[in-house]
């Protein structure tokens, strides 16, 4: 797909709302269109975190498997949201599985490429941080609520 098409998609994605034109050009150099069928994994726990995904269509389950309990989904992510924050910080390794629940269309951002550009241009790096940190904080907060098990039957 032409770069112009990717730029239009990236700029229209809620995660990149209000993105500066020059930043958009920079990161689209690291972007490509991807699709996953239902049941296919975007990545698995332990793999190198070499990308993150802007979801355009479909939903993705984030899972952890535990012996005796099978795969437990702790979060689902849908279009307009992103999958993957581990690419930001060393050791750049996925700590859970990401599985497509339906047909998923997404933009995959090459992490190595993006990290280099962020290193080279700290303004871009700061812009990325400002977009990713709220996602991290939100996930920390919702995890806390899940830990409270507020609907659980009291012992």
């Amino acid at each position, binding site marked *: 797909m032409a770069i112009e098409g990717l730029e239009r998609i990236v700029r229209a994605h809620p995660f990149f709302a209000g993105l500066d034109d020059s930043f958009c050009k920079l990161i689209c150099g690291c972007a490509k269109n991807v699709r996953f069928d239902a049941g296919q994994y975007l990545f698995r726990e332990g793999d190198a975190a070499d990308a993150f995904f802007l979801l355009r269509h479909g939903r993705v389950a984030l899972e952890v498997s535990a012996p005796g309990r099978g795969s437990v*989904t702790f979060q689902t992510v849908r279009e307009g949201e992103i999958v993957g924050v581990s690419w930001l910080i060393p050791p750049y390794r996925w700590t859970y599985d990401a599985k497509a629940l339906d047909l998923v269309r997404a933009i995959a951002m090459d992490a190595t490429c993006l990290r280099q550009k962020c290193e080279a241009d700290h303004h871009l790096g700061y812009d990325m941080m400002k977009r990713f940190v709220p996602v991290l904080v939100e996930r920390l907060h919702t995890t806390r609520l899940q830990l409270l098990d507020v*609907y659980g039957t009291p012992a």
Partner: protein
Amino acid sequence: MLPRVARVRRRRRDGPQVWTLDIETGETDTATLPGQFNMLTAFGIGEVPISLSGLGESSAASQRLLHTVRAVGPVSAALARLGPGDALGLRGPFGVGWPMAAAAGRDVVIVAGGLGLAPLRPALHHLLADRGRYGNVTLLYGTRSPDDILFRRELEAWRRRLDIDIEVTVDHARSGWHGHVGVVTTLVAHASFDPQNAIALVCGPEVMMRFTINALRDAGLTDDTIYLSVERNMKCAVGLCGHCQYGPTLVCRDGPVMRYDRVRGLLALKEI
């Protein structure tokens, strides 16, 4: 203060340790409002407040009311064991219900957590029975796991309707679950309503309500359009025993449904 003798007609399992009792009250003309509760007595065990979770098939001889009970304490466990024909004591209905009149002409966002769906169910019936009076109707329901989803068949039937948006999320799930996973607050941002002309009805554990209210405010709802159902220890249900105090309010008399701007400060306090 004196209960009347009511009778269980039917009993249906609605989740782990959760039972819905269809109760013949022996009365014919008692008006109930969505969000109100009755005091139910298991004879010899005790009495607990239980919200109305719907209306049964009333006859000329008797009204039928539904109550959904989770067997967590001695009284609720005894109530949950009652079968068809068994007697129980009933007093009520009591309390201030959901603001159905104020909801007319507006988008209605209903956010339920866990068993909190039960007191909201009559409100949903009310909205759907007179669907044209309201704008968008959205139900956001969060619970612990797919097995804990209350009124599942009814939710599925509602989902087939084209005039109500329903989103269900669970805190965690095995791989068989195809729906959303995550806390209910995350659904608010995806719901479609006009914050300038919407009203929100919230019921669930207090923590869940606190964070849901934040999400609703972030979505643009004002404090005077958010209603919540407060839980405190209700013993007498008629404002005489002092147990259900919540700051300056008595929940049985001034609630259980309260407008958020009136209890904003209380919700932020611990052990109040």
